[in-house]
Every structure is written in structure tokens, then in C-alpha cells.
């Protein structure tokens, strides 16, 4: 790939780059093909290459299974996790980047620990504790997911804070901006791409979580991943699973497009982490 880029001016190099891009796109899109087919299939048995009967039975079955409220619950859960983990991550990142923390290595290790520890092991003990402490299930789920999202928000924003030049704020003060105005007119806009990236990752943690919601929520909080999992565990639900899986891609996709669009508008600025770069680890979260 590097070779193709280096030879960018030559026709052969360009063809190579196109080939690489094309196969990458194929790699991402190919797994979606059976899902799309299943979502529009009413009957598709083993030897057939394409479904034998087309229809929307999968969609109505998904709606009957409570897809809409589960979708809304997951949206809210993702939003809540993002709303808490992003500012909390920003505070942690700022403190770490500016050296305001003693033993900052230990603190960063602790903050990143939720990524390293298997969530299943941690949550199994936690659910008992939270039950005994009479923490409401919803609060418990949000709290644990915020902890799971903090490593991502902290990491993304720490990089942003490290590259953030406080001279801009000094310049703004000298142009007459009060500290408050500096916050709104300089710091927030300059950090906006990183904040958007961090919020996106935190949203994904809430949106795609299964284990925490099941164990801490005790099965009472039915989110979209729970619905998908329960449909997938049954037999003959392929169409429903396909419909749910496909629709579960929509919110992250919409957010990515939104971030991409605002990133394009703000292009021309230097030293700003692009939303695409910030979103790079997102896949890892989805997979998890």
C-alpha cells in the first residue's frame, strides 16, 4: 500500500491504489450482502443461491418483537453514556495532558484498565454489589458503561489536549475575550472535532453493549443488542435478525456522516484531529 502511494504519480501506482481501496470496500461490504438479502427474504433454504420468496415479513416480525422501543432505549442509553463520559473524559484528559495529576501514569493506567479487563469478569462481581447497594438497574447500567467508555473518551481527548495550543487562548484574551468567551469561542470550537469523536465512541459503547445490560440490568432493560441476541438464539429468525442487524448500523453510520460533513466544513484548519481519525478505534468497540 505504501508502495502504491509513493508511486502516486504513475498510472500503475494509481491503479494499485484503486485496487487496494476497492478490495477494502468489498471486504467491508461483502458481509452485509447476506444480511440485505435475508432482510428482504421470506423463504431462503439451503441450496438456493438467492431467496426463493421475497417479502417484508422480517420487518413486521421485528416490529412485533418490539424493535422500535428497544431502538429508542438503546439510543437513549448511548446518548446518556456519551453525555457523561465525554465531559468526564475531557476533564481527565485535560488534567493528564497539563500535568495536573500526581502519578499520572498510574492514573492513566487505571483509566485505561476497563479496556484491558474482560468485562464479563468485572461485571459478574459488580452486579451483586450493585444489587446489594440497591442501585436501580438503569443507573447501574449507565454507570458501568460510562466507566467502560471513559478509556476511549480520555484517550481521544488526551491526544487533542496534548496538541492543543493555549497560545490561541492568550491571543483571544488580548483581543478582549473574557475567560468565558475564550471557552465558548476558542477552546470549544478548537476541541470540537475531538469532542465529537470522543462522544461518538462513548455512544457506541452504550449503543452496542450486551453484557453489562444483561448482567447489571438483569434483563429488564431490553435494548437493541438484547433483542438481536434473543432473536439470533432462536431458530428460523434469520430475517428478523437481518433486519435488526441492518437497522442497528444506522445510528453509528448517521453520526459518522454527520461528523464527516462538519469535518469537511471545517477543513483548512491545521492541527485538528479529523473525525475519521478519532473514529478509527470505533470498529473495535462494535466488534466487542
Amino acid at each position, binding site marked *: 500500500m505504501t508502495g502504491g502511494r509513493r508511486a502516486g504519480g504513475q498510472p500503475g501506482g494509481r491503479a494499485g491504489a484503486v485496487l487496494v481501496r476497492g478490495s477494502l470496500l468489498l471486504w467491508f461490504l461483502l458481509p452485509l450482502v447476506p444480511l440485505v438479502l435475508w432482510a428482504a427474504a421470506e423463504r431462503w433454504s439451503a441450496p438456493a443461491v438467492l431467496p426463493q420468496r421475497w417479502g417484508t415479513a422480517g420487518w413486521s416480525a421485528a416490529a412485533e418483537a418490539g424493535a422500535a422501543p428497544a431502538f429508542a432505549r438503546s439510543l437513549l442509553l448511548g446518548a446518556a453514556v456519551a453525555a457523561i463520559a465525554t465531559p468526564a473524559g475531557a476533564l481527565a484528559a485535560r488534567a493528564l495532558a497539563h500535568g495536573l495529576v500526581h502519578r499520572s501514569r498510574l492514573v492513566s493506567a487505571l483509566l485505561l484498565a476497563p479496556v484491558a479487563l474482560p468485562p464479563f469478569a468485572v461485571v459478574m462481581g459488580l452486579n451483586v454489589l450493585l444489587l446489594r447497594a440497591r442501585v436501580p438497574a438503569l443507573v447501574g447500567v449507565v454507570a458501568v458503561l460510562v466507566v467502560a467508555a471513559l478509556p476511549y473518551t480520555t484517550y481521544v481527548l488526551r491526544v487533542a489536549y496534548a496538541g492543543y495550543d493555549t*497560545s490561541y487562548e492568550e*491571543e*483571544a*484574551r*488580548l*483581543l478582549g*475575550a473574557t475567560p468565558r468567551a475564550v471557552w465558548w*469561542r476558542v477552546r470549544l470550537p478548537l476541541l470540537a472535532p475531538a469532542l465529537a469523536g470522543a462522544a461518538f465512541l462513548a455512544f457506541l459503547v452504550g449503543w452496542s453493549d450486551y453484557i453489562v445490560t444483561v448482567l447489571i440490568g438483569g434483563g429488564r432493560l431490553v435494548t437493541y443488542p438484547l433483542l438481536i441476541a434473543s432473536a439470533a438464539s432462536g431458530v428460523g429468525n434469520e430475517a428478523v435478525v437481518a433486519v435488526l442487524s441492518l437497522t442497528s448500523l444506522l445510528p453509528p453510520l448517521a453520526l459518522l456522516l454527520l461528523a464527516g460533513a462538519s469535518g469537511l466544513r471545517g477543513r483548512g*484548519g491545521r492541527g485538528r484531529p479529523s473525525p475519521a481519525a478519532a473514529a478509527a478505534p470505533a470498529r473495535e468497540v462494535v466488534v466487542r
Partner: protein
Amino acid sequence: MTAALAVRNLGRDHGGGQAPALDGLNLDVPAGSCLALVGPSGSGKTTALRLVAGLEVPDRGDVLLDGRSVVALPPERRGVSMVFQRPLLFPHLDVLDNVAFSARVAGASRRAARAAAAPFLDLVQMGGYTTRRPGQLSGGQEQRVALARALAARPRVLLLDEAFTGLDVALREDMHELLHQLRAVLEPTVVLVTHDHAEAAALADSVAVLSGGRLLQHGDAGRIYTRPASVTVSRLLGGRNEVPGVVVGGEHRSALGRLRLPTDVAVPDGPAVLLVRQEAVVVTGPDAPGADAAGTVLAVRAAGARRALTVEVVSPGGAAVQVHAETSPGQVFTRGERVGLRLPSSAVSAVPPEDAGTEEPEIADRRTADAGRMPRTHRVASPAVPDAGVRPDAPGAPRRRNHHGDHGT
């Protein structure tokens, strides 16, 4: 809009028992005039600027604008604008919104702020770039916009912190020209920090030389080059000629012979170093009438359109001294050639020597005493004063040449 700036006994400590970043600085900048702060890195010139701007809090002293202390005021209420070495244009705003920033934070609507900003953009000849993003401009264009943005805040004092250092020579000269034009139109009080003494000479009405956090000399830009208060000041302003000798009755005696000192150079009888700018030394034929000394060309070096000559003069007593001179374009000299040197008496000056620390208590002039406490590196950078026979291949000599050559970068 413009205000007189005064700095009284301003001091700022580094902490940790180090020497202060700035110590006892006193300066007066009349309204509408331009002061250049010149000095090597770490001399405290940027600290001085940041204290005036309010970006740092002084440990001692006061900053006065039109006679009123502003030390207690936050930076946004001082009416002081600053252009940094980097343009620092806000990347999320277009060019016109950048210039309109001060009006926006003052509460103007976006439309009104942009309307008020437009003339300032025209003033720096960037009127056609209103909707560009900062990343789409060249370095020189960005710095012009930064200047317009600073001026649009209608500052009482405009501070320039190495604002033109990052630009190439041609752009820098454009910016100098622009600053002259802006000063004629807006008459702001300007304090600029530079390590380039040529820039200071080109822009400022007065020049203050700082070293090691202390003010060594503050004087009229036209005179400070020919009347430096000490050898250190002469060096910091790029002066290369230091001829050791003795002053007797207003006359300097050295390997160059006897030279009459200007009447305004009051130096007591005794050891003294003769200072003369290399640009002021006139190179003539060896037997030309009016030559003050004759010597042999040791080295010829190109210095832009001019040539920098090193001439060795040997006295009848056998003492040798080197004199640096710059010749006009068209004059051709070769190594080993015999030449005459004329040192216009208005351009020469003499100051007490400042070599050994043991002499320090005897030196009456406090400025010179201060210079004696300079960091070691500066002392090493040029040969010790009493060593008359400074060779170009002596350890100190190339360093000084580098120092001189820095300004072209």
C-alpha cells in the same frame, strides 16, 4: 486609541533560586512611538512583553498606560494587542471573522463586526481574502491577517513578539514597510521584540538592549548604534570592532594610533575600548589623505551586496589589532592588499573595558557593571577585550561571525 507606556522596576522570577527572568526594568515609550526590545534568547525581552500584556503577573514593579497602573487588570481589559511569531489565526473562523473577533467578543453582531473588520483587512492588503480559511493562506499572508486582527481591537499599545522572524527576507521587508504605513495611519504605540538588531534599526524610534533579564541600555535608535554604553551592548547590536587602548584627555590611543573622541563621549582617562561600527569604517587606498590607519586585508567575505573586510593594523610598537569594515558595492579588495582606514569621528565611541570580574567594583557605570555579570556563554562568544591580536581563526572569532550571520536566516 494610542497611549504612553511606562514600565517601572518590573521584575519576574523564574523560581527555583534561578536568576530572575526580568529584573528592575524601567522603560518609557511615548504615545505613538515604537520601541524595540533587543537581546539574545533568555534575555527577558519576551517576558517583558508578556508582563505588559498581562499574560504573566509580575513579581515586582508596575506597568502604566497613560500614567495609570494596569497591573491589576486582566489581559482583556488592558487594551493591549499582541502579534506572536506564529500567526495563531483561529482555524475555525474565516479570515474576516478572525479580524472581527475583537468586535464579536465586545458584543457586536456578526454582521456589524465583519463590517467593522473589513477596513483593517484592506489596510494590510488582504481585502480579497475575506472568506478564506487560515490554512489556505501563506505564512506572510497569515501574519498580515494577524496584524489586522490585532489592530482591529484598536489597542492602546501594540506588541509584536518576533512577529516577522518566521518570514523570509523579502516578506519581512514587506512587513516592515507595512508597519511603517500602519504607523503613519493609526499611530499606535508599538513595542516590538526582536533578536535582529537590523530589524530594530529599521522599525523603532528607540531601542532597549536587554541581557540576562536586565536593561543594559535604552536609547534613541539613531544614536544607540554609534554610542553603545558598553562592549556588551555594542556586541548585541552587531558591532564587531573593539579596539583596546587608553583614553587620555578625550583622545583614544591604541594600535590604531590617536583618535579624537566626539565631545559627547564622556569617558574618564584610563583604559578604554574604542567602538566603531563596521558599516562606518571607510576603506581607502593605503596612502589616501585623511586615513586614520593603514593595514593589510586578512579576509574578504561577501555580505549581501557589500563585502565584509577584516583588516589587520600593526602599530609601530608591534601591537596588532583587527578592524572589521564593510565596503560599498563596486569596491574590490583582495587578501593581502594594503588599505587605509578612516574612522569618522562622529561614529566612534569609547567605553571602559569589561573583562575581569576583579575590576567590577571599580567601575562606576552601573550599566557596564551589569554587563559584567552576563552569563558565561556571552563572554565566550567573543574574544577577551585586552587580547588585541584577535585572529580570525581564534576560537571566539567564528562564533561572532555566526552570531552576525544569524540575522539573515
